[in-house]
């Protein structure tokens, strides 16, 4: 079955993929820091959605669709338009390239992210494994 993006079921499946990934467990073993992904409304999708993803030492502690970006505390924020997220989840845009060309914006301690590029890379591999259905 496919999971509708952007819903709570979708982010829970993303979390399940991360927690069953041996590669992420290894790559993220030193990572401490919770993320909020902000999916900004654009012409393809008129609502803004926010996901909380708590990460600690290679595992997801909690993942949920949240009302707005202030609803939970997090150390890292990744923002992009709905279309940018869709391209990323479909494997058409490397999110690291997306950051470099400013399609995504990152807030948080960049030095920490730069020291752990493999954990970011494995998160991307996990998101690609979520069977996703997008609103048309």
């Amino acid at each position: 079955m496919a999971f509708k993006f952007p819903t709570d079921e979708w982010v829970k499946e993303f979390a399940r993929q991360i927690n069953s990934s041996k590669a992420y467990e290894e790559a993220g073993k030193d990572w401490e820091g919770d993320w909020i992904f902000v999916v900004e409304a654009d012409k393809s999708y008129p609502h803004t959605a926010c996901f909380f993803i708590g990460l600690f030492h290679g595992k997801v502690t909690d993942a949920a669709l949240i009302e707005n970006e202030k609803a939970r505390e997090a150390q890292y924020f990744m923002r992009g338009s709905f279309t940018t997220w869709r391209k990323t989840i479909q494997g058409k845009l490397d999110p690291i390239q997306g950051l470099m060309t400013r399609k995504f914006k990152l807030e948080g301690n960049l030095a920490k992210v730069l020291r752990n590029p493999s954990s970011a890379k494995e998160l991307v591999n996990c998101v690609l494994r979520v069977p996703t259905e997008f609103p048309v």
Partner: protein
Amino acid sequence: MWNFVSPRIVFGEGALDALDELQGRRALIVTDVNMVRLGLVDKVKAHLAKAGIDSEVFDQVEPDPSVETASRGAGKALDLQPDWIIALGGGSPIDAAKAIWVLYERPDMEAGAIGPVGDLGLRKKARLITIPTTSGTGAEATWAIVLTDTAEKRKMGLGHPENVADIAIVDPEMAAGMPPRLTADTGLDALVHAVEGYTCAWHTDLTDGLCLQAARLVFRYLPRAVRDGGDTEARERMHNAATCAGLGFGNAMASMAHAMGHSLGAAFHVPHGRSVALFLPYTIDFFASVAPDRFAELGAAAGLPNDGGEQGAREFASHIRALCRDIGNPTTVAETGIARDGYEAQLDKLADDAMNDTQMVTAVRPPSLEETRSLFLYAYDGRSVDF
């Protein structure tokens, strides 16, 4: 969407004269003590004097420069308030100069946070000129900065497109005095840039031609430049090759040989070019089973019969090993003189650091930690990659 960034590049014989026309008041020359001893700093100072620019020198850059060195250099820049930063030397002074420049413009930042995200807001105080004195790193043309975290003994891949130089002065005379070993090590670095830039996941139409031409030039001219330092044609073409490769991989990315090479270099102080060139053929053999074609294309460009497929890629890897042997460079870790027990004791850290190197993200066959560990082991005594 993608970007291509480049300095204005002044190249060829007499390129250093471009300094005579410079507009400005004060320059900080970032370099190392060898450049002072070889008289190259005086040469640059003389040109700057013609332009009416006062200059001071920060010559404390060590090989594999540390975060602390960058901070010290930035302190010197903050005292001096230059409007030009001039990087003179091999990759180490050039990388240090880029970081010094960023920290001078942005004293609120720490070096470890110079990443390719958001705005840096450079060029409010100064601009950057790079003058390479080796033919290999390509650092004159890229925005990449590699600094060493001395506490963790780890190299960090940093940099932002804004910190690319304004002007790169690629004058073959500045590299004419390189001894054969340095010529070989740095020239091989240029080859690895060309190969990884051509084959990594981020290569583009705009970078392919540069990488291909750089690889051709290295195969043709590096053995000549190593054998006869007085071969000015070979010297000049190698100097150009390095910048070509720098533009190519700098606008794509390097890949797994750099990730492994950084990790070995930080742990055992093996010169950068020697270490990345040693690993390159092993990574090609590892990639060959899933993504052989672009390696085979490079083999064809180097004059090998184009067998295509995995065989073609593996033949290209052998061709690189043959070049290394021809110019007296190691093709195994054992040949670098590192003792087996010391190496094996560091194996977990070597693999872990390579996995967390920024250059690893473009590997066309992403390795697991276990595979990376095995590649380090195979490279120790030159075993043929069979996984």
